[in-house]
């Protein structure tokens, strides 16, 4: 049974991602794959910083994860990351811990939706033109 559009829209706005890459499912797929390959490490880095109560590291990792979520046009998870980043700026660890729980749940939901989308939209991996 497919998710109602409003519910999916709350989790991730894939139509906006597609619009921003000229409708290319291939490129949108690459962005989704990149997110999925980094999400565990990024979320783990936030958890580590929070566990160590390292405010500077928490701010940096929360900011990076927020950027990653923004790039994928995440909805609720992005809101949680913003709130967590704001708590990190204030050095408010209790608030940060509470928001981290919310972030983890919403990210899990996001990952699930993205994997479903990916399965429904398999595209050949485009030879990477990223170079440096």
């Amino acid at each position, binding site marked *: 049974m497919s998710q109602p559009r409003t519910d999916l829209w709350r989790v991730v706005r894939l139509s*906006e*991602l597609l*619009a*921003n*890459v*000229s409708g*290319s499912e291939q*490129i*949108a797929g*690459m*962005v989704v794959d*990149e*997110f999925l390959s*980094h999400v565990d490490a990024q979320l783990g880095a936030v958890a580590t910083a929070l566990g160590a109560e390292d405010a500077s590291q928490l701010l*940096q990792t929360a*900011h*990076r994860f*927020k*950027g*990653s979520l*923004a*790039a*994928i*046009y995440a909805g609720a998870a992005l809101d949680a990351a913003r709130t967590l980043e704001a708590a990190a700026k204030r050095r408010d660890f209790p608030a940060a811990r509470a928001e981290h729980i919310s972030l983890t749940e919403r990210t899990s939901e996001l990952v699930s939706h993205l994997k479903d989308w990916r399965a429904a939209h398999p595209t050949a991996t485009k030879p990477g*033109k*990223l*170079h*440096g």
Partner: protein
Amino acid sequence: MDKPKKRMTVLVADDEPVTRMLLFGVLEQAFDVIHAIDGQDAVEKYQKHRPDALLLDVQMPLMDGCTACEQVRALEQDERVPIVLMSAQNDEALVLDGLARGADDFVFKPINQRVLLSKLRALLAGKSSRDTIAAQRERLLALQQETAREHFAASAVLRNILGRAEVDHPSIRSLMAAMNGFDGDVALVAKLPSGNLRVMVCDVVGHGLPAALGTIPIAVLFYSSARQGMELGNAVLEINRQLCGVLPVGLFAAAAAFEVAPDGRTLRVWNAGIPDLLLRRAHTRDLVSFPSENLPIGIAEQETCTIAQAEVCAGDVLFAMSDGVIEARNVDGTMFGMERVRSVLTMDRPIPELFDDLRSELLHWAQGRQDDDITLVAHTIGVS
């Protein structure tokens, strides 16, 4: 077949990998994309690849985007590469800081593809114009250097042909000042077989090398006719006739020639287009004018010419000048004018000093400014 247009390259610097992938997706249809993971990496890759534009995230580890922007600007030589900063925060202080440190524009996350592409295309169009201007400047400089070499060679040839304008003759004083490296004015002095001097002053229309080249046939014909002892009228008609066949349309010369007849008492003056020649009497302050009564030379062949005559005595001085003297302007733009010349030449001053007086007045008037070649010649009658 037209050469395919080379794709421009954009360097994208963001420490966040998903954002980098998204930006690649946004840009790759229009540009080749190079990625960097932080500000320091961006600066190094700028030096290595010299991309056409940079897109730098503000907040990056190791080196932030504003600092990277500053460093790239310091590394630039002749070019100015477009730099756009990215930020999640639309913060006035941040924007002002970024622009002050060399950024050309800002975009805010989440990045809008159309806005980003429009900004990059506008900035790159400006860069393209600057690159074109720089290339044209290089070509102009090369052309300027080549022209300078040609002028040097031409100048040497002209010097050899014309020799010194003022002959070392005690009766002649002269002021010759070319507006630029080449003089379209010429003063020629030749000794006739009779032993008298014939003097010719010419002002070829325009100035610079074309005008200077026009003086060559005039000089050759003048000396040739003088050597043959040709009568003044016949000489100027012959010079004019030959010039009409030599000079291109649009190139001609105002000229005057004069000589004292073998009796030593009759001055003969032919004026074809230069300002009045002025004869200052030795024992009075009278001036006798010899206005132009002939067409300038090189325009049309003539069958006859008009030569004025006047009785002279030793010590009288004849002044001939090109219009560069009359039209010399001061700082207010006022011309020196014929009235000023007459005023100086009728001063109660020793005759031998009048040339220096007129020259000093003229140079003081112009204060180094010069819009035309200047020639002033004074011939003292009876000095040999």
